């Protein structure tokens, strides 16, 4: 059969066959990739391009908008000297480590009590955490400053008047800063942990208990091991929050004469005219690289294992009975409620009725009257609502699309895309906004959105993307692919199975992410501070400007209104969540967080 001539002829015929096969392969790959290209392009423009501009700024003697600059490495040398002389680097690292340890411990403790035990008051934990997370760090810092500064803090004045004792608490100190930021960060971290904690199947733990393991051993060897992907994300998030923390170090750290990296960036921009963009960019790029390495380490640690804990079967969710430990557990929850929500937010609401913080003679509604006498207030409220709802939804939909794609893509591509979404986390607030300005104004058509509300929407999408991708990623990772496969085997198309199975199962997570995005946008100051213009001012910017000026009490009044808005949002979400539960969508990642 195999004659030489035939062999030649086969080879001669195989060449076009290989080419056709390669062509078909390329076409197939293009077909597979094509739907995701717009997504990849969007991620590039929103997240990577600003970083490129920032990097150019770090190696230039002028801002990227200024063509007169030339390349230099001097910015990094100056930055290195600066952060070491002022101890900003050491302080920030210590701060990030201690706040992460404390915040993760608090979040784990509260999560365990709320989701896995019969502790009294456990139903309060999640709403409390939502309110706490929703309160931006700036407002939290203001709240604690009003509550426990050693001069006029409400609590210190009260103690002094009641007992004649000098100031008991001084929040403007190392322990004060760590305490305040840890309380705040714990709320964010809790929200990441709550869903996986609640929906984890207890059968593995029970198997361990049946095999003779103690509860404590089962918790550490089974529960925490199963939660490793989310725990590593949470620890990473804690470190990043600590490193990026700005408002608390600025407001509480400055009077304590403590220097931190993020505050140094602000000072670098403030202390020169024109601002030293290069040095600030060098610091921001260095932070980005550092956080990028952390993300890579996390990927290496957990990225290749399967942690599917939600499948077609309903999980077993019996609670641990705490016995004699029920009431100490309740006290722990109550203490968090008091310190994390009631006292700081109460101080803000109380101060809104004062003529000026620290002046306790009269209480009146004068600040609220002044607020509503402002002809711009309608526009400010409208801008805030539009950005919160619109940008929140766009950001969350984008996040879920990215999470879905990364769960189906090759590990390398997925890690790259996921890494790109986390880049924004690394950019310290003010510089992140600067980078976005540089990025937007360098693009021919897009640059016309500068000064409009659309730029704010874009910025807020960028702001909420990292956290939304984390939530979406956790939700998608825990969904077994077999659910979709089963639908396809039953004859459903790929689109139908995605929409009717995956999307429906992800809906509560999506709603939850949207709620978080909305409240994050309402409280975010970093993005709109540089990007909002006269007609696009948001509530957070107005509050900051009032506080920065001479109208601190009016700022407290507006902040109280903002808190009211957030409570309404949380309530609306509660109703939606109940409706979702009513539609038998119980077996979902964050469902348990609100049970």
């Amino acid at each position, binding site marked *: 059969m195999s004659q030489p001539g035939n062999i030649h002829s086969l080879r001669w015929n195989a060449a076009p066959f290989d080419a056709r096969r390669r062509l078909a392969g390329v076409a197939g790959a293009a077909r597979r990739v094509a739907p995701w290209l717009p997504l990849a392009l969007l991620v590039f423009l929103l997240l990577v391009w600003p970083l490129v501009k920032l990097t150019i700024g770090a190696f230039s003697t002028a801002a990227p908008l200024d063509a007169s600059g030339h390349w230099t490495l001097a910015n990094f040398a100056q930055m290195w000297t600066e952060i070491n*002389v002022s101890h900003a680097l050491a302080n920030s690292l210590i701060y990030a480590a201690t706040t992460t340890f404390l915040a993760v411990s608090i979040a784990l403790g509260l999560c365990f009590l709320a989701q896995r035990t019969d502790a009294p008051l456990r139903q309060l934990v999640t709403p409390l955490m939502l309110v706490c997370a929703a309160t931006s760090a700036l407002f939290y810092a203001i709240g604690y400053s009003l509550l426990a500064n050693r001069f006029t803090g409400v609590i210190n004045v009260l103690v002094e008047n009641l007992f004649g004792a000098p100031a008991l608490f001084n929040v403007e100190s190392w322990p004060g800063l760590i305490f305040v930021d840890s309380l705040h960060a714990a709320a964010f971290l809790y929200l990441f942990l709550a869903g996986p904690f609640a929906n984890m199947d207890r059968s593995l733990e029970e198997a361990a208990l049946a095999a003779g393991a103690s509860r404590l051993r089962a918790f550490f060897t089974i529960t925490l091991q199963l939660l490793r992907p989310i725990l590593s994300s949470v620890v990473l998030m804690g470190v990043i929050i600590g490193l990026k923390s700005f408002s608390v170090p600025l407001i509480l750290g400055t009077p304590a004469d403590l220097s931190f990296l993020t505050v140094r960036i*602000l000072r670098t921009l*403030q202390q020169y005219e024109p601002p030293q963009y290069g040095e600030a960019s060098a610091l921001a790029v260095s932070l980005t690289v550092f956080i990028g390495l952390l993300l890579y380490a996390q990927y290496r640690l957990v990225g290749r294992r399967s942690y599917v804990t939600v499948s077609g079967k309903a999980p077993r969710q019996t609670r641990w009975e705490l016995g004699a430990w029920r009431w100490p557990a309740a006290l722990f929850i109550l203490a968090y409620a008091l310190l994390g929500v009631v006292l700081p937010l109460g101080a803000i609401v109380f101060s809104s009725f004062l003529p*000026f913080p620290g*002046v306790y003679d009269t209480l009146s509604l004068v600040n609220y009257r002044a607020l509503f006498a402002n*002809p*711009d207030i309608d526009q400010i409220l409208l801008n805030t609502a539009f950005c919160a709802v619109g940008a929140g939804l766009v950001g969350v939909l984008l996040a879920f699309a990215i999470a879905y794609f990364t769960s189906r893509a090759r590990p390398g591509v997925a890690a790259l895309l996921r890494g790109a979404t986390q880049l924004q986390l690394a950019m310290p607030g003010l510089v992140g906004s600067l980078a976005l300005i540089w990025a937007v104004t360098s693009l021919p058509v897009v640059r016309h959105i500068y000064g409009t509300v659309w730029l704010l929407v874009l910025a807020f999408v960028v702001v909420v993307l990292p956290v939304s991708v984390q939530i979406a990623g956790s939700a998608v990772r825990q969904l077994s692919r077999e659910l979709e496969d089963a639908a396809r085997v039953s004859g459903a198309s790929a689109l139908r199975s995605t929409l009717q199975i995956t999307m429906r199962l992800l809906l509560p997570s999506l709603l939850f992410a949207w709620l978080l995005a909305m409240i994050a946008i309402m409280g975010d100051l970093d993005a709109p501070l540089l990007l909002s213009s006269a007609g696009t001012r948001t509530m957070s910017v107005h509050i900051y400007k009032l506080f*920065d000026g*001479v109208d601190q009490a*009016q700022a407290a009044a507006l902040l109280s209104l903002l808190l009211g808005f957030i409570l309404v949002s949380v309530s609306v979400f509660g109703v939606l969540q109940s409706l979702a539960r009513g539609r038998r969508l119980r077996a979902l990642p964050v469902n348990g967080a609100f049970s």
Partner: protein
Amino acid sequence: MKRLLMLAAAAALTLTSALATPARADVSAADLARNPGLAGVSFDDLAFLARLYNAALKSGKTTVNVYSANAPVDPNNNLGVVFRAFEKSFPGIKVVGTRIGGAELSARLDAEIASGHRQGDIVGSADDYIPRGLIEPFDPPLARNVPKEWHYPGNYYTAAALKQFGLVYNTRLVKPNEVPRTLDEVLSPKWRGRVTIGQPTGVEPIDSVFAVLWDQKKIDRPTLQKIADFIPRRDRAPMSSIASSWVAQGRYAIALWATSSVGRQLASRGAPIAPAPFPRTVTNPTGHALLKGAPSPDAAKLLLDWLFSPTAQRLYGSAVYEQGAVPGSPPAIGMPKIAPDGAFQNPVPGFSEKRRKIYQDVVLPIFGSAT
């Protein structure tokens, strides 16, 4: 086709209604003379204002965006009172003040230029932007009586009011008869740990204060060292305006070279704070300047000129707590008198460079850098 006809009909209707609307008659100087907000303005000056007003209304560019660190956040207070009076005098023109300064303002102006979407018309503290070519010269006719030394050479801007950096004190912590009257009294052991000051950074008002005092030989190194030793960094406020707030809150009894008008504004909100006479007070004649490429140039010039009218100058004193720069303007209510032989930070080219040099050579080695 049907849709095309409908569109054509709609266009014809719009055109007809536009043509049918009577053209707005120009406002004359005589019309403006009847306006109480323009009382005391000469007929020639009214004619100039009328020309700008009509031009602004005709162009439809009637919103003036003011970028200034002193712009009011609450538009019913402070400089907002002045702006509202302007809007009342010139119906149809709107002033939007944005409180912005330093790096934020610099970044915004750069971005507006790069995007081609300019929004700012007027900027406060123009000294840093004049060398960068961002300011359009404009000589307001109503400012002709303002002393020459308060005009920035080249007519880039003219000071409209006088801002004081002096001493403010907490009225609960300091009895009126205890208020220090000299720097030596402030630096007495009695006040140790109870005095605050803005941390010098190179661009803060306190840096301008030190630059003026140093330049005019009213302060020397030993005195600066004494101040730095007496008020260590932990007692210094990150900004001069925050120093006033700290005193209002009772954190400190006294603030040195704080923005006195901020102290007075805080007092008007009920805070226990008051400005006090202080011989080393530094007075800064401040003004607003027209940005190049301003989107509403006529309306902006109208505002810049009107700020020197008797009404605006009076409101500077009663609502902004800064004395008007036009001679004969009423003094700022509740503020110490400005001594004619005191230290003035006059608008002159090169002041920023001088301030930076004094900061680097003299102030920084003594006070150290900010945290």
